[in-house]
């Protein structure tokens, strides 16, 4: 790609055809994306959202024995108190030792904006190294120091000479990208440039002396381990139960699994290149890392949608198996799993059939959830992906087959459009990303969080867990009713008469 040599990764806005504003059917979205006509879409009115800093920090926080220095004013990163509990419990659920959760703010003030924040950053890095003796110190760049020109790569490199920890810059100023998902590239770029990705002979593998009697056997074992191991690339939106389910399915294919990049220790990364395949669980998460490992180390990768939903899990498993010539085994696993799941779903189907749903969240996940809801007998009346980019095309082509006419509203939160759609469609169920559920509830609608750290959403276990969850929230909506009768939404009544997409500009 040629991006990997640069200090900062390109943002997705520059490297992909991408939009955060669209309203219409799947067909026209695909046409717009392929014709290069979506990137210019914007909004005359918009509402607050997160930025790539938020997700970059969340990813950095998962790394054990790491301290993160947020280089910016005290407000940048101050949302991290919300992440501490989630990361502590998620690490524990994965059996990862993650005893302390430490981040520092360089707390930039007026004077620093004038004079530059170099000294403060250096001081914070030294303090972090001396006090907490971490393995890694991440340095996250925010908007203000990015604009005044603080060079965190240069400062990190200078400080590397005096500190024991690996100093790793993260380029994540919010204004640079309209999509939070740029954080994946930011984090992977840092790993690619600053982590060790090759095994050390002796430490990570040991081959006997060439003339030793068991040399050939050991050599064979080593090669077999390598050719039989896959890397599973995780993300914050997958909980420990998801990883467990996917590892279970891969183990059933007789594959060994190592999980990267979240919750993996710095020293674990040396083994990332000792595997036969990199498996991504989402089309828009991991292409940056997978492409690098392919180009640099010749490691093949599999980016083939999400194993979410009954058919999708089977297709995904077959795609993995295909790489190892194990399709027959995969088919037997799929048949057994589907039979068992189908029995389990029977009592739930009646409670879900015909219910109408709107889905709101990550671009790939909402598409797969839509197809799964159809499998469960629900009717999907609206889809709200946070953004749309050209990496999503294959998934939305598939979505088009299932829902040729469904309404797609590309919007990172943008609650005003959401509320308009909900008033119009009056669905029974909203499956929503965190931060949006309360608003759906105020509109009087049953809500289920799009994903949860404690509940599987992937694989066969995920289908059952979600079906059960949807049936539960639909079973009693007294709170939603009481709230909707007593709480007002902040829009003028005329808004609900208008087209939900009236504030989107540049759409062709």
């Amino acid at each position, binding site marked *: 790609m040629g991006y990997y040599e640069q200090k900062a990764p390109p943002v997705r*806005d520059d490297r992909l055809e991408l939009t955060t504003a669209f309203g219409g059917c799947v067909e026209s979205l695909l046409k717009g994306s392929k014709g290069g006509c979506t990137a210019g879409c914007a909004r*005359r*009115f*918009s*509402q*607050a*959202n*997160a*930025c*790539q800093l*938020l997700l970059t920090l969340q990813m950095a926080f998962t790394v054990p024995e790491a301290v993160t*220095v947020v280089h*910016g*004013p*005290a*407000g*940048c990163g*101050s*949302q*991290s*108190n*919300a992440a*501490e*509990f989630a990361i502590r419990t998620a690490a524990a659920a994965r059996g990862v030792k993650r005893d*302390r959760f*430490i*981040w*520092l*703010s360089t*707390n*930039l*003030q*007026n004077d620093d*904006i004038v004079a530059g924040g170099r000294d*403060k*950053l250096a*001081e*914070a890095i030294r303090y972090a190294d001396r*006090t*907490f003796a971490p393995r890694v110190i991440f340095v996250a760049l925010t908007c*203000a120091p990015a*604009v005044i020109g603080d060079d965190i790569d240069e400062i990190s490199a200078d400080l590397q000479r005096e500190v024991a920890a690996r100093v790793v810059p993260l380029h994540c100023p*919010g*204004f*640079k990208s*309209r999509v939070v998902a740029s954080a994946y590239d930011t984090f992977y770029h840092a790993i690619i440039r600053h982590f060790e990705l090759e095994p050390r002979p002796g430490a990570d593998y040991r081959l006997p002396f060439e003339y030793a009697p068991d040399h050939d056997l050991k050599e064979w074992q080593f090669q077999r381990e390598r050719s039989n191991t896959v890397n599973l690339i995780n993300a914050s939106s997958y909980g420990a139960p998801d990883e467990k389910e996917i590892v279970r399915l891969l183990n059933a294919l007789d594959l060994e699994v190592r999980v990267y990049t979240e919750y993996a220790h710095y020293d674990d990364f040396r083994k990332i290149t000792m595997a036969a395949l990199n498996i991504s669980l989402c089309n828009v998460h991991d292409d940056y890392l997978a492409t690098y490992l392919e180009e640099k180390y010749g490691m093949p990768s599999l980016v083939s949608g999400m194993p979410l939903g009954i058919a999708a899990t089977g297709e995904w498993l077959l795609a993995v198996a295909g790489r190892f010539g194990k399709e027959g085994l995969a088919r037997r696993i799929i048949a057994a799993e589907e039979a068992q799941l189908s029995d389990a779903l029977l009592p739930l189907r009646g409670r879900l059939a015909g219910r109408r749903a709107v889905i709101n969240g990550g671009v790939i996940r909402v598409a797969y959830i839509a197809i799964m809801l159809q499998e469960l007998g629900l009717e999907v009346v609206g889809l709200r992906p946070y953004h749309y980019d050209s990496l999503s095309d294959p998934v939305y082509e598939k979505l088009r087959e299932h829902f040729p006419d469904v309404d797609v509203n590309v919007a*990172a*939160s943008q*609650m*005003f459009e959401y509320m308009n759609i909900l008033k119009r469609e009056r669905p029974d169920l909203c499956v929503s990303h965190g*931060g*949006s559920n*309360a*608003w759906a509830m105020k509109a009087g609608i049953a809500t289920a969080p799009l994903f949860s750290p404690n509940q599987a959403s992937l694989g066969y276990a995920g289908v059952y867990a979600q079906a059960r969850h949807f049936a539960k929230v639909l079973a009693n909506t007294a709170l939603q009713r009481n709230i909707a009768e007593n709480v*007002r939404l*902040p*829009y*003028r009544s005329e*808004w609900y008469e208008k087209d939900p997409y009236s*504030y989107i500009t540049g759409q062709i």
Partner: protein
Amino acid sequence: MGFVEKPRFSCMLGGALATINALPRVAPIVHASQGCGGNLYMAAFSGSGYFGSGYCGGNSAPSSSIIERDIVFGGEERLAEQIEATLELMDADLFIVLSSCMTEIIGDHVKGVTERFHKNAYGAPILAVETAGFAANSYEGYGKVFEGLFESYIDPVPQKDPRLLNIFGVIPSYDPFFRGELEEIRRILGRLGIKANTFFTNGQTVEDIRSAGAASLNLNLSSVYFAEGLERIRVSHGIPHAALEMPVGAQATERFIADVSALMDVPPETGDAVAADEARRYYAYMDRALDLYADADFQQYGIVVSNANRAIPYARYLIEEIGWIGEYVFVTDDLDEAQRDRLSAEFQKASFPAEPRLVFETGTDRIMKRFFEDRPQFVKDRYFDAFSPAFILGSSLEREFAQAINAGLLSVSFPVTNRLIMHRGYAGYNGGLALFEDIVGTLVGPR
């Protein structure tokens, strides 16, 4: 001011947003990168015992969400477009435009753009406040919003209402119990015949903001923050100001009643009668709790870790109200020399019997280390005067500290992540009782 480990505050914009989010039917228009509004809201939300989005906060807050192109070419036109659309779409009684780091660095004239909309088709009042994140912390952001309101929204009223005062210095979200505290203070003042504008409690409207110019006193319940702002308001609106400590428990509230009576010319007998009546009720409840408290001997060695507004009031409560051995009072705000001096003077004034140590320290790790410097964790002696039983009145970040010294912990200070806070507050008489309930509740929790 240097770097900070896990700051227990956010930036000026963060404080302004939290403040506006707590005002009734007031909408912010954030002129910033898309993440500022969402992230800063999340900071306030998760640290305040989950004070939610409310009417139009969280990810419903209007935001210009400027991108790199606007940074290069200027964001004023994008802001104008956003303001116009916001007025058209959102139903609010007052709109406040907030600037941010980026828009201040590139020099967008936020007040100028806002002025273009002073006359709008909806008759909606709108004003702008400059709140670059790097300019100051969240406590100052609170003051900045109120200064902006006095400057552009609250008219000076020559004829003051002798019975009306405005309460300041209680900062939404960053003082997590602000709603309950304000309601209790308002209740007590009401018994003295004083009307109080709290701005944030249920039933308050923009009319209470507008009428604030008629108040005869601006009562600041913070000895550190907003004094300069209130001085400017004294000059512009002719309202004198005075600072009193937030009272917690019967002893402190009795003093508060006497002080506020003197400030508002309430006859001392009225104050005495109210205090006596409240104390009877207060100690009747305490009476019933003693069987448990005394048998178990729940008197503890106390540590307070809190912000500049609450550290001393909480220390007073532990030491003067419930007779604990107060050893440490940590103040976790990033204060300048003058602010520290003010707080130290207040601390001296309190004249605690066995004087606890007042320590200014922002970092969670350093707070712990400061404690262990004085008190080694492991002592080889068979007999030594251990710091036990210990109790920390702090934030949720003190979890590790509490585990290290085997102390009880009640999180009362930002960030409070392990409790939902609705109408609870620790101010006044009801607050003193609630605090006692919660502290003892923690101690009997395992039963």
